[in-house]
């Protein structure tokens, strides 16, 4: 190994190291995140996919230490090399929005309903830099609104006067207000129409690309991540079960769950999609009562005896691919396999098998 060079690559924007987050509930601690590690570099888009309750939103909240009071956190979350979990409050408040900003789901109640949009966007600007006057802030607000495709005059509107797509774009503009380097987008397109989804995504990705920001995009919709991100992590029951470049993960998933997610959003022209599985049987596991061994085994088409006793670790399978499955096989076409098993399940017993 060669000695470290002077001008090494800068530290990653976001580095999550063995994160464990657990919520206190009336019936005992609820582990939401059970050992997740990943990193996001400047200019990179990383996606996290998974069903509701798998812990992905918790990760976004924890990055800026917004998890509910009483939640216990182990591991480190480094933003620009500094651990947000151990920072003093003053520094944390500066990091919030200034280094990393969250784009929440704007459709519902993430905006103050009785404040004008321009005031809400200007608020963090003037908070983070007291020298900015009202006029300067207003100018910047206008610029931000135009950068997301809204006329600057819309700033005087109230949230209820905007459509869902417009509100989401306001959330994006607001996130960029203090020129952060990292954007965390938590389900930014859920609850929007498909066409509006595409618009919002294009606005987000264009800005990220133009400004060279890092993006952590969280969604249950793998197709969104597949087309927007460089890399994708698939989470299940608080752990990462698959990790790889977006396109190859979407086309050739290696983990059965990843395969089910990918197959749930069939591509036109893909012959395997003709027999796409209609979702997964069963329900997401109760985090307080996880199945033994691999938490996915009750719903898995490949499960064997061994899967009920051993929890597979996340291991590299191919260059840039990691999977947490005992039966992972790089050469297997997961989507085809799932399509086949779906067909077999649909056919009555004893009849001839499909292609």
């Amino acid at each position, binding site marked *: 190994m060669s000695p470290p060079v002077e001008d090494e690559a800068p530290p990653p924007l976001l580095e999550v190291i063995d994160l464990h987050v657990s919520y206190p509930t009336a019936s005992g601690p609820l582990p939401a995140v059970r050992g997740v590690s990943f990193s996001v570099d400047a200019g990179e*888009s990383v996606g996290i996919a998974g069903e509701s309750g798998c812990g992905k939103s918790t990760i976004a909240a924890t990055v*800026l230490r*917004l998890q509910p009071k009483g939640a216990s956190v182990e591991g480190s979350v480094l933003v620009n090399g500094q651990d947000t979990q151990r920072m003093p*409050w003053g520094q944390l*408040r*500066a990091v*919030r*929005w*200034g280094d990393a*900003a*969250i784009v*929440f789901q704007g459709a*519902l*109640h*993430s*905006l*103050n*309903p*009785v404040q004008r949009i321009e005031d809400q966007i200007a*608020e*963090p600007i003037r*908070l*983070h830099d007291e020298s900015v006057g009202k006029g300067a802030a207003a100018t910047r607000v206008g610029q931000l609104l*135009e950068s997301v*495709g*809204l*006329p*600057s*005059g*819309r700033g*005087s*509107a*109230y949230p*209820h*006067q905007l*459509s869902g*797509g417009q509100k989401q774009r306001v959330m994006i503009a*607001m996130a960029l207000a203090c020129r952060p380097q990292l954007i965390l987008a938590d389900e930014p397109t859920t609850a929007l129409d498909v*066409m*509006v989804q*595409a*618009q919002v*995504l*294009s606005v987000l*990705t264009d800005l990220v*690309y133009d400004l060279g920001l890092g993006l952590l995009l969280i969604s249950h919709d793998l197709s969104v991540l597949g*087309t*927007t*991100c*460089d890399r994708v992590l698939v989470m299940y029951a608080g752990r990462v079960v698959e990790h790889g470049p977006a*396109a190859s993960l979407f086309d050739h998933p290696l983990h059965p769950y990843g395969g089910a997610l990918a197959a749930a959003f069939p591509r036109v022209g893909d012959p395997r999609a003709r027999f796409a599985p209609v979702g997964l049987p069963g329900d997401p596991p109760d985090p307080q009562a996880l199945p033994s061994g691999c938490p996915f085994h009750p719903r898995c088409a490949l499960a064997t005896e061994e899967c009920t006793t051993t929890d597979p670790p996340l291991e590299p399978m191919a260059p840039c691919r990691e999977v947490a499955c005992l039966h992972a096989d790089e050469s297997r076409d997961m989507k085809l396999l799932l399509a086949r098993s779906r067909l077999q399940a649909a056919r009555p017993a004893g009849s001839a098998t499909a292609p």
Partner: protein
Amino acid sequence: MTHPIDVTGIEPVAASQSASDEVSASSRAAGWRWFGRKVAGSAATLGFIVVVNFFLFRVINKHPERTLARGRAKTPEQVQAIVDKYGLDDPLPRQFLVYLKNIVTLDFGDSYQYSQPVRGLMLDRLWPTVALVGTSTVLSIIFGIWIGTIAAWNRGRTFDGVSTTSTITLYSMPEWWLGLILFLFLATGFGPIPRLFPIGQLKSAGVDGWSLNGVIDQTWHLVLPVVTLTLAYLAEYALIMRSALLDEMGEDYLQTARAKGLSDLLVRRRHATRNALLPVVTLVSLNLGFIVSGAITVETVFSIPGLGLLTTDALRIPDIPVLQGTFFVFSASVVIANLVSNLLYGWLDPRVRV
């Protein structure tokens, strides 16, 4: 990185500035229309009260000439003269029109007890009631909201427990009974406690109301009744503010505010508390009648010569014109106060100005 399909033609992404101006102009017009609707609604309610006032007292006062004639007329001709003078056997619609004409000038006739115009009596008694109710309302709103806010911020801790228990108990108390107890302890003297406050009335005898001495004297007389009413009123405000703020603290936009780097204190003050005031305005405006009830009963307990005491005194005979007058004044005040608070709410919450 692949680029998604360009669908920018579907929704006007960069809408023109003029379109945006149109939108704000139409929303301003909607705001004025809403204002007009509220005022018209209150006017209709006032009209309803005017009508009810007329018919209600008609039913009570079936033979007004008898009460009017008491002590003044004996012979049937004299009674008939009274009937003619007041138009008491005119057809109903005619009487109603006369009533309408009179009510515009707040002319309710003469009091049976005092043989003076009701309007004059009410005007004389107006100031004590306004002083009492006005001061109490202002103080109770300030303290009630303050206590409710702190209780919500410290939910589950000692302050919350103590204040919530106290306010619920105050809320379950007849306000005049609280007045009686305060009177008993602090005005008539009880055991070791000396007589700290005067036993009722607004002024001590022989003191000119508007001199400096007089003002101090009036204030001294008003302390106990104001304390009574303030405590009684603030209970409701505190309880409502607390629950409104607790509701607000669970809202998503507070998470956004925190993520933007606001400290807890700023989040609470600038966003949560301010927004929690909105439902308080609504809920309180539904209950403005209790301010009036408090005035009536507490004035009676402390013998404050205001509109409330006028009303309870008038119940004895019953002095119909006075009752009719005070009923109208009280009801109309509540309607107007309601309108003011509705308009205030509309000013604070732009969502309702649709």
